[in-house]
């Protein structure tokens, strides 16, 4: 019981911890949105990790090596993150469209390749040689290019606003625009979409780019808002990619739901850290509790979902 209350405190106990949770949620939301878009379009993009890594790396490089005023480099870096993630993702899409190579496998494989490639760059040519020079990491990005913090002394940064904005925009896009509609239909039944004149190839490319773009943006935002450099492994060890995918699945690929589910997952994670800090419960148990809660939530959600679907079906054909 104490564990749960500590968990709650660790996640939402004070304004400080709330911002902690929100900043943890930021990359998860963005990755989740990318997955949402791809899943909605019917593409099982499991490559968020690689896309995120390349996005983060590119953002760091632009921020470090492109001349110009800070705001300009910041925007360029964010754009570069989106592009890098998008291109990497589109590459998998292209292989699927052109050579019928299963997207599920290619995206998984591309994760390994991206992370090794990024690892090489920061271990050798782009290595930070200042400081202790012991890390596989780029140099620290100049402060003028950092994403601003939202509150003094707290980890929450402007990336969170970007993520929430992204969720709302994606929601509106999916629901109200023609291409959003076409994307959804493509995911629902590609044959129906083809029959209605939706161009699968083009849409696939675009939605993979956008999906990877979100993941890339997640990487960029994490680099520009939290890490201030690309550090090998810092985007993959926290499991943002899998958390994001999980959030999407929990929310049934609904953009706003995804944002919400991401917050939930982030809260579980920061809460877990709180438990570890303030009780004798070791970190491992915190992660066990976290996994168990997720299992519980996913079972519960799908149960509710099934029930609602049944209810709707019953009301369905009265007219």
């Amino acid at each position, binding site marked *: 019981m104490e564990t749960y209350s500590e968990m709650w405190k*660790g996640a939402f106990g004070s304004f400080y911890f709330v911002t*902690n949770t929100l900043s943890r949620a930021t990359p998860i939301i963005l990755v989740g949105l990318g997955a949402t878009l791809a899943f909605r379009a019917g593409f099982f993009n499991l490559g968020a990790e690689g896309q995120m890594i390349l996005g983060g790396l590119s953002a760091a490089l632009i921020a470090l090596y492109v001349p110009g005023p800070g705001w300009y480099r910041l925007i360029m870096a964010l754009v570069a993150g989106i592009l890098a993630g998008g291109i990497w993702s589109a590459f998998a899409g292209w292989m699927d469209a052109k050579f019928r190579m299963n997207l599920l496998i290619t995206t998984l494989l591309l994760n390994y390749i991206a992370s090794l490639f990024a*690892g090489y760059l920061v*271990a050798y040519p782009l290595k930070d040689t200042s400081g*202790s020079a012991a890390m*596989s990491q780029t140099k620290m990005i100049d402060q003028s290019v950092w994403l601003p913090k939202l509150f003094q002394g707290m*980890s929450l940064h402007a990336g969170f606003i970007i993520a929430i904005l992204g969720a709302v925009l994606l929601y509106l896009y999916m629901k109200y625009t023609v291409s959003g509609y076409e994307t959804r239909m493509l995911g629902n039944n590609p044959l129906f979409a083809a029959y209605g004149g939706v161009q699968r190839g083009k849409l696939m490319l675009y939605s993979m780019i956008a999906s990877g773009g979100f993941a890339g943006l997640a990487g960029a935002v994490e680099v520009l808002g939290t*890490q201030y450099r690309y550090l090998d492994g810092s985007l993959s060890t926290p499991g943002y990619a899998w958390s994001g995918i999980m959030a999407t699945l929990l929310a049934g690929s609904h953009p706003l739901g995804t944002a919400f589910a991401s917050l939930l997952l982030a809260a579980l994670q920061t809460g877990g*850290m709180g438990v570890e800090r303030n009780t004798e419960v070791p970190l491992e148990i915190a*992660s066990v509790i976290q996994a168990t809660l997720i299992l519980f939530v996913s079972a519960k959600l799908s149960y509710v979902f099934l029930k609602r679907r049944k209810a709707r079906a019953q009301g369905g054909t009265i007219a």
Partner: protein
Amino acid sequence: GKKENNTAGNSTNTSNSGNASEQAPTKKVALVLPEKIGVNAFFVQMDEGFKKAGKEFNVEVKTIESTDPAAFEQNLRSTVAENYDMIITATFQAEDALKKVAAENPDKPFAIIDTVVDLPNVRSVVFREYEASYLLGAAAGLSTKTNKVGMVVAIDAPLLKKYTEGFAQGLKYTNPNAEMLINYVGGFTDPAKAKELALLQFSKGADFIAGASAVGDLGVFEAAKEKGFYTSGQDIDNTGVDPEHVVLAQLKGTDTVAYETVKSFAEGNFAYGAVDYGLKEDGVGLTYVTRDSQSPLNPFIGQATVDKVKAIKDDIVSGKLVVKNPLNP
């Protein structure tokens, strides 16, 4: 290591943190680690030293592990928020986060082990591991019969150059003809792969294979036991695992450092600035050479080699021999 901390053990002292000694006995000190302790003897030892000091000096100590860099930063910030009196952290992985947090909280004392953070409220302690690995390489060069030695390394990253290149220099110094094989496991938690790599190096003729793959070293040890070659461990004296095959261990006194840090804080003589520990300060070392071991010396190494390596060590300490810092070319 940076230039300014070549003056070993020095302490560019600023003011003592005001709340040091004379207050209520229970001060709270946190050790915030950027990783989980589990995979790393380095942290285990540090944690032990930390806890021991906590007991001896009546300080409330709390060790906090982190799953990943982002979690680490949050943990670090949280310890500030939760009002610990001093916060110790460790390794270059903590560098960035500490720079931010320490700068934001200029009144809070921090310490960092194994890397340097150049801020007025931070005490930094670093090691010159390459000096110890130089000795290890030297010992290997003197002991090998096949003129082939190997090293199984966790990942191909700058950090581990402190081990590989120090070793290579030492090897070259004592045995210019010896060949050195290096293989990378690709991770810190994969003994099965590490074992496979060790077996591969053995099959290529290496008779001494040093482990530098964190938990993977256990795989190297097991390979040594199976095939009967010789190996060495890292950070702590793990020759006890299998004295017949684990014949040396490169040492790193993280426990001492953690202990000393808490001690100085408790006793009120905590000083900021950078301190570094090498062979001279007895912060790093090699079994039998700088420190005795519970396990008897294996004849593969032999006393003659130990004596020679001891001489090398003395040369390094006296500055007659300079080991190149691989990270500062």
